[in-house]
């Protein structure tokens, strides 16, 4: 098996993640957000179990792809749950904490997975997902519905009165409408809206660099090609290298909250004090991205220039911290900016476009990182 083929179970999973909004939007529109959390997460865990039991490479790849695709549903509705629960002025704190999770996940995966793969074998990495997954699922079950329209529809049914207006314009096929919002419109916005296009290209590039690290770190720290290897770590230690990015993500979350409290919240309160209760301009969300965009190249140059045998291994790892912070800040500002700019419905399409490009690029980048 070639080195590139060995990466396939990673890349198909990430590719599957990009389909999130496409499959979860119709479900959450019809049956609410809770349905997505309850009925998408479970099959994803079952496919992960299938991947753990598979005896052929093809079976492994297929199970991993389906696990990623079904599991991505939960990634796409999280932002909606957030706006259900928190008023705009409090929302940034909640969404920073929520967005931390999908960034911390990839960083902590190899950290724990490295030791598991070293002491046991790769199947145990899948059992590890199951272990966390069952725990998360048990916590998920008692939740209530948060989606306004579904709550009102149930109330209408219970009291036998008129329900809320439908989001779907009358006379339009419901499925067709949802496909437009989740696939056709995101693709159109990706090509015709310069904000969506450039922001998506930027965050997708950052994301693909992150996933490129999954292939690049082993070359630097632990390589199947000993002649180009720089530091000699074992599998478990090479996984710990990702803690640098993890620390960066946590710091990035704290910085994002601080920037929100010091700038966005302060300006909102000042504006309200003057009797103006309209939300601030979307551009006010971008201060975090301004800081993040400076930290990204700093981290990358630091990592690349210091990865030498005569430099201590901690130096390049420390360089990944600014990268982790920058990646998180840019993405966080991007999501808030898109939703503020396009409103809830078009914002969802813009975010879907962003996710599609982000995970598609993130999936293919590791495949040619080694060759570079």
């Amino acid at each position: 098996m070639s080195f590139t083929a060995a990466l396939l179970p990673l890349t198909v999973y990430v590719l599957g993640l990009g389909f999130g909004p496409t499959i979860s939007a119709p479900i959450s529109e019809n049956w609410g957000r809770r349905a997505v959390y309850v009925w998408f997460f479970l099959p994803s865990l079952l496919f992960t179990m299938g991947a753990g039991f598979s005896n052929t490479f093809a079976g492994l790849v297929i199970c991993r792809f389906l696990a990623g695709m079904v599991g991505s549903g939960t990634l796409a509705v999280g932002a909606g749950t957030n706006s259900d629960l928190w008023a705009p002025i409090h929302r940034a704190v909640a969404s920073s904490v929520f967005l931390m999770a999908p960034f911390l996940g990839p960083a902590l995966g190899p950290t724990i997975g490295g030791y598991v793969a070293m002491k046991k074998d790769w199947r145990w990495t899948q059992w590890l997902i199951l272990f966390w997954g069952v725990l998360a699922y048990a916590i998920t079950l008692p939740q209530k519905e948060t989606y306004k329209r579904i709550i009102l529809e149930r109330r209408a049914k219970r009291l036998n009165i008129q329900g809320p207006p439908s989001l779907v314009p009358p006379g339009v096929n419901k499925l067709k409408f949802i496909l437009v919002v989740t696939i056709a419109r995101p693709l159109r916005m990706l090509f015709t809206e310069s904000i969506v296009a450039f922001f998506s290209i930027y965050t997708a590039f950052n994301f693909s660099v992150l996933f490129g690290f999954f292939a690049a770190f082993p070359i630097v720290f632990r390589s199947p090609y000993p002649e180009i290897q720089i530091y000699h770590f074992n599998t478990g230690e090479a996984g710990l290298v990702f803690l640098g990015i993890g620390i960066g993500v946590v710091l990035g979350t704290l910085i994002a909250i601080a920037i929100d409290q010091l700038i966005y919240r302060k300006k909102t309160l000042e504006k309200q004090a003057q009797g103006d209760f309209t939300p601030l301009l979307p551009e006010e969300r971008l201060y975090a991205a301004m800081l993040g965009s400076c930290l990204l190249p700093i981290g990358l140059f630091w990592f690349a220039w210091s990865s030498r045998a005569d430099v201590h291994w901690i130096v390049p790892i420390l360089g990944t911290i600014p990268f982790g912070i920058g990646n998180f800040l840019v993405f966080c500002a991007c999501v808030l900016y898109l939703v503020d700019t396009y409103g809830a419905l078009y914002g969802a399409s813009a975010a879907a476009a962003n996710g599609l490009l982000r995970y598609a690029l993130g999936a293919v980048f590791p495949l040619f990182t080694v060759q570079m």
Partner: protein
Amino acid sequence: MQGEHSDSDLETEKMSVPSDSNSAVSVSVPIAPATLDLEKSISRETRGSRHGTALDRTITSAYDWTGPDDPDDPLNWTLGSKIYHTVIPGLQAFVVTFGSSVYTPSKYASFMRSQAIC
């Protein structure tokens, strides 16, 4: 689309409620509309006594929330309940993305094994 509009209207209403901004409002805005202040004080009162009165009240409309104090509106849930419902997508997103990369370290082990066989 209509739903979206009423949604954002509701949000701007909510934005006028933060309690720590009230002092600033009363100092610097002589022309603040009286209705806004009224609305604010009402919603603040009902927020405090949500458990006592709001649940007993008969609900007459399912077209939209009955007001900013509608007990079914997630914006009016208790802080603990809000945090719990925010944690759920976070936990699931963590598990799903954790699954993306947890596999990577093991691929080198399998790669080396296959090299050894060849």
